[in-house]
């Protein structure tokens, strides 16, 4: 393999970037700060340039479904392509700011149609919360019993009626939240810190190649 196709040039780039960013973070006030802000801006710009890849992927999938006449799906794929086309044309033809200006087609579609995806998620979660309470939160041993115990008391802490049944419910629920919950969150955050450090170490010696689009 030619040297320029190996992983080493990529590692050199990675080392240069991490040096700039760490240096400007730990020694603020040098000219590295400018390099840092330029890099952050680069990252935003590159992310925006890449965005069309997603649209291409979805379009390819839909076109494939239409071509194959996938049963029960191909007319929906046409509908999807149509929606994409309308949104794009309106978004570009009606000028900058059209996605947020009332009165444009793209804004109308978003605020009266696509936006309800959020509400759909909320709705399904609201229903699933109770089936999860019924099926998943079962005490089989001491560990799962503690899980149910914790859920029970915080539930009664939050329920407007909990405090009226017994004044102790909110107190216990509050304690669970302010001592064990916070403690476990802290410990897990420490664990994540350790994980990121080890991941970064592996990354910068060229062992984590997935980030460059390579596999072992």
């Amino acid at each position: 393999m030619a040297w320029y196709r190996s992983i080493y040039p990529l590692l050199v780039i990675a080392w240069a970037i991490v040096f700039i960013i760490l240096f400007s973070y730990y020694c603020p006030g040098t000219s590295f700060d400018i390099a840092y802000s330029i890099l952050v801006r680069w990252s935003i710009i590159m992310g925006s340039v890449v965005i069309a890849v997603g649209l291409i992927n979805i379009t390819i999938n839909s076109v494939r479904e239409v071509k194959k006449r996938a049963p029960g799906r191909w007319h929906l794929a046409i509908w999807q392509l149509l929606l994409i086309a309308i949104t794009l044309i309106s978004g570009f033809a009606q000028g900058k700011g059209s996605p947020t200006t009332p009165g444009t087609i793209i804004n109308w579609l978003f605020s009266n149609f696509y936006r309800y995806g959020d509400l759909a998620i909320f709705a399904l979660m609201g229903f699933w919360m109770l089936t999860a309470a019924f099926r998943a939160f079962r005490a089989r041993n001491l560990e799962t019993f503690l899980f149910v115990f914790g859920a029970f008391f915080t539930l009664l802490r939050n329920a407007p009626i909990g405090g009226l049944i017994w004044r102790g419910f909110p107190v216990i629920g509050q304690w669970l939240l302010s001592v064990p919950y916070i403690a476990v969150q802290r410990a897990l955050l420490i664990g994540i810190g350790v994980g990121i450090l080890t991941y970064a170490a592996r990354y910068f010696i060229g062992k984590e190649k997935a980030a460059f689009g390579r596999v072992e």
Partner: protein
Amino acid sequence: MAFAQKNIRRIIYILCAISLVITFFLPLNLPIAISDETRKFYDTLESLEGTGKAVLVIFTIPPAFWGEMYHTMFSALQHIFLLKDVKLVLVPVFAAPGVGLVNSLLRELYNPLNKTYGVDYVMLQFIPSMVGPALAAMADNFRATFQTDIRGTPIDKLPIMENINTLDDFGVVIFACPAKEHPSLAVVLYPRYPKMTYLAICMAGGYMFIAPYLGNVYKAGLWGITMAAEYQQLFGGPYTAARQQCDGISLYHILGLLMLVLGNIIGFREIVKKKGGS
């Protein structure tokens, strides 16, 4: 029985929808216990009455969370308007759609209460930056951060802003955001003005983010619709929507508890059966 076992999930879904909706048709007016946290929030604002000081409300509210934030914001702002000789300064930060939402809320409030814009309350210019830098700018030089209010009037022409030069001129600072930005107040604003009284408004799910700061940074907080309902009950406000929704929420929680207990009983019976079988 076989039907019930097969469709147990669907039955739960339907029960769940009924529990939340039925109270709109048949208000139950289930009693609500007023928590100490709500009372603390209330007392803090109440202590401002007659001092002539202003309350600063910094808010950043994305529209997805407005459904939940509306009730707490409504309660707090209504209380401030009802207090005698207390002014209100609002500052929108980061999430631009929040401006329109809070404006519509103010429209609901000031008309019946006979308050004048620019004298009793004002909304200052929108700060588009992230929350941390915006708070830092306000802390360093409050006056210089804002040239105009949200309507474009220069800040010097507003009577309400005459005696306000730094953050110290406010009586209370309320920070309203759904969840994640709360730590930035503790990190940025609190070290520079440690003597100021801070209050928090957030979603119920955002409690995790203010919990570490309650008591040391924030004097009190309002989170979730139930606290809004408690608040309304506390000062006898005329507003009932939060109250009404609270009935549904109570029912939903009772249903949740029932499911938890029922599921555990069934699970326990299965374990016993297995042991008996083997």
